[in-house]
Every structure is written in structure tokens, then in C-alpha cells.
């Protein structure tokens, strides 16, 4: 998941659709994010490359809409509803996920296990 400047980023992604849960006046998704281009990337426990300033899932609340949809802790979010999340600040990421007018968010996430699965399936051939 590291990127070489000037080269396009390629990753194996999984599409996850989360329905927002209405809790009173708020719409919650049920997970926590960390990271961003304005944060200190070296403290990210989930990233392989410690210079990766992407948005990672740091906590998934049990039984929440995110867990039901298949989000796991440590996932890196690449896109939210078509908006890029690899080069955003922490606050911008939060805003893209918590838009009040949207009931559902479609995420593209990537995790290390996905790549391994793809490699294994390619090796079988």
C-alpha cells in the first residue's frame, strides 16, 4: 500500500455499503477513523508503510452498521461515495462520512488480507 510519487496507486479494494443508523438527531455509522495528511503517520498502528497518511479504521463498534456491513479494524478507506480519501485531512474525511443528507455510504476499502487472497488465487492458476 505504499505509493511512489508520480506513479498511480494500485490496490485491491473491497466495496462495502453501510446503511447509516438513526440515533435521535444523528446518523451514526459505528466506527472510528484515524489518520489524514495533517496527522502524524508514524503513530498509525495499522499501516504497513509508516509514511502512509491515509484514513484507517481504528475501531469498529460491536453490532453497529459498519460491523454488519463487513468493515474490519485496520482497513484503509480509499473512497467514500466516490470521493477520494487517500489525500485528505482528518476533518475533511470526517465531513465526507457524516453528511446529513446521505443515508448510505459506499466505501472502497483495502486491507492486507485482500492482497494475499488475490495473490493466492493468482498462484493457483
Amino acid at each position, binding site marked *: 500500500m505504499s505509493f511512489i510519487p508520480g506513479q498511480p496507486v494500485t490496490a485491491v479494494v473491497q466495496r462495502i455499503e453501510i446503511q447509516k443508523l438513526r440515533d435521535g438527531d444523528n446518523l*451514526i455509522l459505528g*466506527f*472510528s477513523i*484515524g489518520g489524514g495528511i495533517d*496527522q*502524524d503517520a508514524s503513530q498509525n498502528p495499522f499501516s504497513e508503510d509508516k509514511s502512509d497518511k491515509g484514513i484507517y479504521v481504528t*475501531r469498529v463498534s460491536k453490532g453497529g452498521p459498519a460491523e454488519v456491513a463487513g468493515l474490519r479494524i485496520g482497513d484503509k478507506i480509499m473512497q467514500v461515495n466516490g470521493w477520494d480519501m487517500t489525500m485528505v485531512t482528518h476533518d475533511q474525511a470526517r465531513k465526507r*462520512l457524516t453528511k446529513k443528507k446521505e443515508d448510505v455510504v459506499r466505501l472502497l476499502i483495502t486491507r492486507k488480507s485482500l492482497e494475499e487472497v488475490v495473490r493466492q488465487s493468482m498462484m493457483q492458476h
Partner: protein
Amino acid sequence: MFFRERSRDCHKSRSKGSSRSEKSVTINAPPAEPLLGDQSVRGEEVQDDNWGETTTAVTGTSEHSLSQEDIVRISKDLDDSVGLDCKRYLSVTLSVILGLVVFLTPLAFIILPHLFWSDRLRACGTACEGLFISVAFKLLILLLALWALFFRPRKASLPRIFVFQALLATLVLLIVLSYWLFYGVRILDSQDEDYQGIVQYAVSLVDALLFIHYLAIVLLELRQLQPYFSLCVTRSTDGETKHYNLGQLSIQKAAVVILENYYKDFTVHNPAMLTASKSRATRHLAGLKVYNVDGPGGNNAAAGIAQSQSRAMIAAAARRRDSSHNELYYEEAEHERRVRKRRARLVVAVEEAFTHIRRMQEEEQNKSPGDVMDPREAAQAIFPSMARALQKYLRTTRQQHLHSMESIQQHLAVCITNNMTPKAFLESYLIPGPTLQYGQDRWLARQWTLISEVSVTSGLKEGTIFLLKCIEFSLVVTAKKIPYIQLAEEFIDPKSHKFVLRLQSETSV
């Protein structure tokens, strides 16, 4: 002579009515002579009988209101007004008499026994003579204290007496009288021999007087120091507003304080700046004319017609698509541009003028006493180069009547003497200052009228409104109580200020 009297009374009643009606904007002129002449022709006998009932008598009211003509008259004949001076001198004489009586009473108490029955008096021992010293010093302190508190130069003459001062004077009089009564009955009549007792009695009177003086300080001076009301003062012509915090004063005293601050805080009243809005207002309704299509109706319908006419005019004026707001905007923009251009020219001219003169040093003075000028001559020398620009600027900002050439040259001389920069010299012309800054002839009215619905000696209350009127404008004063402040305390331990770096934040969505 008879009809002239009646006309004067009618004139007074009509002008009183006009000054009391706060709703009307214009003040009606007194009726012309021929109108009354018609009345006299109609029925002499009828009016002869009941002219006593129909004549309006001017009774003393609690509000001190004068019509405009009276004010003008009074301000012109200020020297001839005996009434005001009489009041002032009367109060001064009364207070001096009271002071003398108060001062001489203890001395009289001590001296009278010696005059009348000195042979039977017991000899004055050491303690008694000590009391003499005490009386002397206390009287001296009382004298100085009275001088300090009461005999200060008056700064205003108020319409009514000051209630607290009157009460205190009455109290002092009561005390002195009761002491004299006791003295007269128990000591003079019975010719008491105990001289020490008599001296102690005199000392007690002086003590009582000193305590009354302390009461006077608290009532007259200290009680008003703590701010309790906030007064909002608005000028009626241009709406300039200032706020003042005052203590618990009577309305007339509050008026004096406000007027003192008015001369120092409010910018000078410039009637030339007000004509623009008036002309706009007249143009607003000027284009409309009302025609009575149904012919002249009866007298009882006249009021109804007038009302409907005015309503129709207002409605038509509101509906008319007039572009006066457009005119106002462009006019103001144009005026602003012109003022700024003139101001730029003025600043440059003054700066240039100031470079023409230079202060001469000491050594040079001794060496060449040639073309030396004192500040006045220096001012006169450089004034012509900036005069035209200054005059044009003053005319554009409509201030030209506030400054005479003499005053400008004088101001220039002062600025040169004190090494002021051109900017400092121009400050008083670029920005309109408070009324005190201009000559005494601009102070216009020093005779103000206090118009109030409640008695002027009553204290200020929440929501009190009164008016201070002078010839050209009036000040509307509203009193509001300063809100009661409830202060709560919160303790923060200085050791509780701890911080962590917020570099990896986590947000839950």
C-alpha cells in the same frame, strides 16, 4: 389697553399649549392682531361680563416650561433679569447667616454666664480650661469643614431648591434652637453656678454640629458617587448618543452633570448638516395634491375629510415609485469623493507651508538678528499659502462658520510654538470636535430648560425621561438602572493545566 391685556393672556395660553404638546413638530405662531379685532367688534357686552372666567391664568406648575419667544427674550436680556440674581443672593445670605449663628452659639454659651452672674460662678478648674481648648479647636475644624463643603463657587443655578440642603439647614436650625431653649430655661433663668457643666454643654453642641457636618458630607457628596443609573443622552437633531453613569441624583442635579459632559463629549452642533434630510422630506410629499371632488362638505365632516385626505396622501406617497434613494446614494458618494479630494489638497498644502519656516537655534539668534519673526508673525507669513485650500475644505464640509480667520491664525501660532506637526495642526479642522473646542460664541445657549413630567427635585428612577431644551435643539435623556451583577467564583488549580500532543486523533462516525 383692555383688549391688549386679553390678547397678551391669549397669547400666553396659546404658546403654553404649543410648548406642552410634544406631538406636534411645528410651533404655532401667535395669532395676528386682526383676528382678535374681529372678536372685539362682534359683542363687547357679552365678553365684558365673563372675561374673568375665560382669561387664562398662568399658574405655577411643576414643570419649568417656556415658549420659544420667552427663551429668546430672556437670553437677550440676561443682565436685566433680576429674578434669578435675587434667588442666588438670597440663598447665599441665608447660608451665611445660618453659619454665623451656628458658629457663635457655643461661644455665646460660654461667655454669657461671665457677663451675667460671674460673681456666683464656681471657679474654672483644670478640666474646664482643657475644655476651652477643645471647644476652640473643634470650632476651627468646623469652620474649615463648612468652608470646604459649602462655600465653593457655584457652577449652575437650578430651578428648584436642593432638597437635601434644605433638610440639613432645617435640622441644624432645629438643633440650635433646641439647645438655646434648654440653655435659656435651665441655665439663664436659674443662673446655674456649675461653670464646668455649662462649658461641657457648649462642647456637646459643637460635637453635635460636627456630626451633622458628617451627615451633610454623606448625604450631599458620598451618596451620589456610587454609579447606579446609566443615562442615555440623545441629541434631537442628529441623533448623536452618549451614555453616562451616575449615582442616585435628583433630576435637576443629573441634568447639570449631563450638561457639563455635553460640552466636552458631544461634537459641536452644526445646523448646516441637517438641511439635506429636510429637503428630501419636503420633496417626498410635495408632488401630491389633494382635490376634493365632492364639493365643500359641511363643517362636521371637515375633520373626517382632513383625516381621509392625509391617509390618501400617505398611501399615494408610499405607492409612488420614487427614486429618492437612488439620488441619496449618488449624492453621498459624490460628496464623499469631493471631500476626500479637497482634503488631500489641504494636507499637501499645509505640509508644504510648514516646510517654509524653521525654528532658529540659540547660536543663530546671537549671530544674525536679521529676518527674525515671533510665532504670530511666522503664522501670518505662512498662512496665505494654505488659506485657500483650507477655506475650500471648510466650505465643502460646511464648517466655515465655526472658524474665523483670526482663530485659525491663532491656532497656527500655537502649533508652531509647540513644535506640532502639520497633522496635529489639521486635526481640529478635519474632525469636528466638542463644543468646548470652539470659541465661546459657539456655545450658543448657556440657558437650558429642563422639561420633565415629574417634579425636578424627585430622584432618578428606572425609565425616567426628561428633556433638556436649548434654542436650536434638545437633548432627550433616558435613565436605566445598571443591572445587578451576580459574580460567581470558580477556582482552577494551576497544576490542572496539562496538555498532550494531538497528532493522531481519532474521530468516531
